[in-house]
């Protein structure tokens, strides 16, 4: 199953909704699409929604870490939400939960940032 990426911006926050499978092959598309928006718009924060993501491996962690480093440069916040148990395991191993904000869903994430 390929990756499908749905992006939209609200205030200074980029919403990234993923469905399908995020691996090394599909990570290029995700990185390029986010970066081209970052070039055009003032983006401070990002919210990744993994609700319909059925697979993610360490290549996915790499992309998220990369976006985290970009966001951090602008003193923004990166939030991930809707983790299933498998993605949660991978995120645990990666230690990402120590540097990212993790919320239940997009609503909680928006509230956290005050873009609701």
């Amino acid at each position, binding site marked *: *199953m*390929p990756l499908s990426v749905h992006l939209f911006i609200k205030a200074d926050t980029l919403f990234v909704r993923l469905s399908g*499978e995020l*691996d*090394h*092959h599909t*990570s290029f598309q995700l*990185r390029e699409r986010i970066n081209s928006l970052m070039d055009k718009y003032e983006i401070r924060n990002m919210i990744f929604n993994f609700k319909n993501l059925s*697979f993610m*491996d*360490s*290549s996915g*962690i*790499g*992309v998220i*870490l*990369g976006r985290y480093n970009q966001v951090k440069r602008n003193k923004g916040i990166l939030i991930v939400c809707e983790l299933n*148990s*498998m993605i949660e395991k*991978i995120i645990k*191993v*990666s230690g990402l939960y120590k540097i990212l904000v993790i919320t239940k869903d997009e609503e909680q994430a928006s509230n956290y940032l005050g873009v609701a």
Partner: protein
Amino acid sequence: MKQKRDNYAEIIFDAISENEAFARIIVAGFIMPLDPTIDQLNELKTIVSEAVTNCIIHGYENRGGKIKLTLESYHNEVTITVVDYGKGIEDLNRAKELFYTSKPEEERSGMGLTIMEIFSDEFHIHSKMGEGTIIKIKKNLDYTKEKYA
């Protein structure tokens, strides 16, 4: 229930990134008759995905080559090997360190080998410079055995 038959398959395929998903589908198809739990299925898919990705980007440095995936089931135990004939790993101990990657510029996380080890019951890696790398893992599909919380 009917006793499950032992099974064997070996697959040789091109080291192109499209085949990361293909390798996951193959593993899922192979272990389906063994009635794995969803977690076991996902863990095996992740292991193979990590190993195949490594062959493509590290073993062959994105220049292509052949990958060999071997799948064996014996009673409730699955053995998987992933082999490339690429550049090999110089320092295995450093490679296995969590977060070590030789390609930080490609946004690699350096977690692949650690994930393979955590998600399997047995994990072996063998590599020779200029000849390639072999990853071999075993996983028991008994329900009762849970290695971590």
